[in-house]
């Protein structure tokens, strides 16, 4: 095994960039395969071996691989698995604790604004998580983007969009909290607000925690 020269590494990157792979995970797997293979051969055989790899990792093959990889990503399924595992005794107690605290806060709240503030807390958590996800993703993806500068398509983690969407869609609920009368005509918020607030807050907290677990698991295997 030998160390490849900078020129050889540049050659590899150029060859891979021509495939216009957008998934950072697929891109890095192909790049690692190329380097691992080419390191096994002497300098004189570099071009011949690179050509052989190019015959195997064609544009069509890489795109089919990427499409299948995207198709297999199911954040919802992963979240459901986490939730199922989550229901051990200690966590049920933890959840019961949260429920009790939220219920206490909701009954203590005197104004509608205070209840709305309670409802906003899990949404704020989700928003913070989205910011953290963006930061972590940038930290991990920037070196790759730098190496593959000039790639035909923008490089991003295959998990970034599905995870980001899962984090963002509950934020739409903020509209329902602040403008209930626009969404639901003749809505009498006073009567059901405390109970709805407790229920929604607990559900959203549970959703946010399970999504955080999924992110933690996925961050080990993907660039998010």
């Amino acid at each position, binding site marked *: 095994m030998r160390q490849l020269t900078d020129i050889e590494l540049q050659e590899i990157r150029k060859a891979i960039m021509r495939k216009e792979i957008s998934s950072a995970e697929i891109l890095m797997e192909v790049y690692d395969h190329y380097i691992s293979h080419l390191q096994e051969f002497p300098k004189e055989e570099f071009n011949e071996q690179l050509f052989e790899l190019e015959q195997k990792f064609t544009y069509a093959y890489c795109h089919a691989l990427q499409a299948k990889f995207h198709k297999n990503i199911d954040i919802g399924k992963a979240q459901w698995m986490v939730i199922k595992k989550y229901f051990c005794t200690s966590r049920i107690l933890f959840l019961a604790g949260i429920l009790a605290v939220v219920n206490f806060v909701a009954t203590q709240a005197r104004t509608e604004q205070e209840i709305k503030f309670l409802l906003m807390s899990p949404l704020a958590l989700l928003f913070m998580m989205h910011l953290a996800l963006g930061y972590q993703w940038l930290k991990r993806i920037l070196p790759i983007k730098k190496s593959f500068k000039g790639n035909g398509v923008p490089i991003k983690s295959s998990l970034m969009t599905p995870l980001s969407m899962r984090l963002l869609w509950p934020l739409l609920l903020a509209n329902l909290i602040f403008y209930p009368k626009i969404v639901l005509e003749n809505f009498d918020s006073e009567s059901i607000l405390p109970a709805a607030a407790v229920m929604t807050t607990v559900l959203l907290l549970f959703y946010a925690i399970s999504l955080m677990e999924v992110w933690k698991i996925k961050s*080990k295997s993907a660039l998010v």
Partner: protein
Amino acid sequence: MSNNNLIKGSLQTIILKLLEENEKMYGYEITQRVKELTEGEIKITEGALYPALHKLEAEGLLTTEIQQVDNRVRKYYSLTKNGQKEVSAKMSELQSFVGNLQRILDPEWKPGLA
């Protein structure tokens, strides 16, 4: 023997078995290990390997972990608990198939005979 069609049906079992013996492996390492074990007789093509690895990962039989190696990211595959259970099932399935194939090819053949 380098008939890819014959290997295709056993590829998942080969991957699972190798990962049972080696805690974690990356794609290129798997191809090299198969080549080494079969003295170059069986070559796993990259065209079949990566889709198989991704499928096993999606089915929850494999888990992955990314690690920084030199100036690049390497994806390691390892067995999940379900994957560990699946290895023995897949192995007996393959062994039974090979036994039956042997019986077809050589009706005189008895298991245990060289």
